[in-house]
């Protein structure tokens, strides 16, 4: 089965991103395909490499990066939502004239069309959020 995943909530404040992470891992382990994980609303906050949770806590952004590294899954952050919330990659840093960037490895910033395309191309779209 080909899945698309939408993550609508930020890490820690809400369990949605960890649930999405667990679901994605389980789907991959079961041999399914993850077409794309799309981060929207506060979900874009999953994609900063600047988080440093306590050692006995899960590193959610790091776990997504690890998963992308191991399985080559496409982690896409919505550009409009990211601009509102300060998630910046090199391209955005240049375009918006920011003094740095914070995107975690394995993530990329792109448009909402990527979410719609994921809905079209996948057999199931699973939304994690409130």
């Amino acid at each position: 089965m080909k899945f698309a995943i939408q993550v609508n909530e930020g890490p820690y404040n809400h369990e949605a991103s960890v649930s999405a992470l667990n679901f994605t891992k389980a789907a991959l382990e079961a041999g399914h395909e993850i077409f794309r994980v799309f981060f929207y609303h506060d979900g874009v906050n999953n994609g900063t490499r600047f988080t440093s949770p306590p050692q006995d806590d899960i590193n959610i952004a790091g776990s997504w990066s690890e998963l992308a590294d191991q399985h080559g899954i496409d982690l896409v952050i919505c550009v409009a939502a990211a601009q509102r919330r300060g998630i910046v990659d090199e391209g955005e840093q240049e375009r918006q004239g920011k003094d740095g960037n914070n995107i975690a490895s394995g993530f990329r910033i792109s448009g909402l069309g990527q979410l719609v395309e994921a809905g079209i191309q996948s057999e199931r779209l699973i939304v994690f959020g409130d």
Partner: protein
Amino acid sequence: MSDIKKFMYVNRKAPYGTIYAWESLEVVLIGAAFEQDVSVAFVDDGVYQLIKGQDTTELGIKNFSATYKALGDYDVNKLYIEKESLDARGLTLDDLMPLTYEDENDNWAEKNSIRVVSSQELAELFEHSDVLFNF
């Protein structure tokens, strides 16, 4: 991408207080360019998104309600409002913005986009959708 899928966007939250409604509308507008079969549903506090005379001046945040009026121009003309949600909030169709579209198959006649449906009818619409976005 020649296949046309049935997209259903489900709006469950009030227009202000959280950003879900506004960012949902942004997906609907972008999605309209993909020429899919689009429906939008409004349930629970989501019915407030279409209320007439929204004024956010005192809130100091953007009033995006006029954007719903543009949906018809994007060929998004199936807006389903759950009757039970309206009833529970003491609202009727008269409390909502009139939203219309021009029907190209009927000499561009202006028609209502809003359809009030029961939760049972809405459940059937959900069942027959291919892609269901929850906001």
